[in-house]
């Protein structure tokens, strides 16, 4: 930046011309402040990944006992970031909401929001780990096990995978049938101790407990049972299909299960 072009040396002639230029004297602290900030910024890029966990733990006593809610603006690791792949965040009310389970099934299902909430409910508390690095500790989830939905529909012979669709019109995901039958795979309608909000993928989203966040598709609309792998939105763009936390995408995060 241009600060570096300033002369740090003795005053040139004409610079100390009387009281009006009193501040042309003095030490170039302004430049030190700028360079110091740039140094800190570079350091933060290098070590921020490791530092932010410590910052979060240090701030946790404050953020967990904060009646004002202001601490939710504090950028620690324990904070969801809102991503979407389409121009508009999709919106669908609970009344309009439908979940379809179809494909290689004996009884295709079309479930309303109330249908879902009257099925057996499963609650989980798991860390949520994004492949871009942030992690939210101890997120509370509630919803219907994918295995219950699959049993309700009756999976036909020869089926191997799920192809999962979002009502944002663009996002898709994939799971093997074996993965989908685990006990930490939900069609979730509650997270963070409340309904799944619009920006978090409400009214119903996928929660794939052991995998990176991109597997937990938001705005869940359709679960299609198929007999081949159809890689999801990010998976055709280079991310791993089997996105186990800590064992994929070149990352070594602590597993979430």
């Amino acid at each position, binding site marked *: *930046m*241009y*600060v570096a072009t*300033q*002369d740090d040396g003795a005053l*040139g*002639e*004409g*610079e100390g*011309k*009387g*009281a*009006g*230029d*009193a*501040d*042309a*004297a*003095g*030490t*170039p*602290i*302004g*430049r030190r*402040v*700028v*360079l*110091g*900030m*740039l140094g800190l*910024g570079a350091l*933060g*890029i*290098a*070590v*921020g*990944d*490791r*530092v*932010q966990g410590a910052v979060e733990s240090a701030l946790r006593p404050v953020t967990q006992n904060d009646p004002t809610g202001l601490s939710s*603006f504090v*950028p620690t690791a324990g904070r*969801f970031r*809102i991503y*979407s792949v*389409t*121009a*508009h*965040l999709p919106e669908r009310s609970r009344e309009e909401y439908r979940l379809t389970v179809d494909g290689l099934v004996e009884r295709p299902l079309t479930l309303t929001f109330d249908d879902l909430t009257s099925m057996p409910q499963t609650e989980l508390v798991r860390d949520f780990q994004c*492949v*871009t*690095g*942030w992690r939210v500790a101890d997120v509370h989830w509630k919803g219907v096990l994918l295995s219950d939905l699959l049993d309700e529909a009756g999976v036909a012979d020869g089926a191997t995978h799920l192809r999962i669709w979002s009502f944002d019109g663009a996002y898709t995901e994939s799971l093997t049938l074996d993965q989908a039958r685990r006990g930490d795979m939900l069609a979730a309608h509650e997270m963070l101790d409340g309904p799944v*909000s*619009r*920006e*978090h993928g409400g009214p119903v989203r996928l929660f794939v407990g052991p995998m990176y966040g991109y597997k937990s598709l938001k705005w869940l609309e359709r679960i299609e049972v198929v007999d081949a792998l159809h890689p999801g939105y990010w998976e055709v763009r280079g991310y791993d299909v089997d996105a186990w936390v800590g064992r994929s*995408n*070149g*990352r070594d995060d602590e597993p979430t299960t």
Partner: protein
Amino acid sequence: MRVPPVEGADAEPGLDPEPLPGPGSGLIARFSRAERALHWATAAAVLACAVTGFVLYVGPLTALVGRRTLVKDVHVVAGLAMPVPLVLAYAGRWRDSVRADVRRLARWTAADRRWLLSRGREATGEVGKFNGGQKANAAFVLGMIPIMVATGSIMRWPDPFALSYRTGATFVHDWTAIATWVVVAGHVLIALSDPGSLRGMLTGRVTRSWAERRHPRWAAGHASPEPRVDEAVDRPLR
């Protein structure tokens, strides 16, 4: 290369077509047209980034606005535009006025530190064209812009960067953004509480009495052949 600092009406021929007040008039030239353009263009970019960044940062607001891609695009364009006024300010013949004030802002005297630490209560008689707070603000903004452009670029175009750097860039971007909100809010509140100062950045000129009150050593450099009696009593000009 050294350009002697220049100031006042003679410093910028042709830049301000209307005649500037001469010695003894009630107004003193404070900022050239180029400096004001630099200030307000930078302010517009920072404000656009602050508003769109807030929307992107706060989940429920993102949902309320809905058009996340548009908000993101505005944020990125405004962010990339942030350093442009600075570059342009140094690109033309108008750079002399900018350089002279940047030099003033960069140098801190013991009196500036005392002024800043006492929050403007001490060393008020020592204040030149810029006080310690203005110098601190300028240094912060000058450091903030490259940090935000660099970290924001890593977030927007992450492919060449290792994941740990992307995370680190996000970390730095977020915390610097919070600091910027605080500094800019303080800057705006102080400006609004001091109309004389705001007028300087809006019109380029300030009244002599304001300058003598707030920036006495700078005002003293602007010769006033006929000091008014009330000023001469308790505030010797030299």
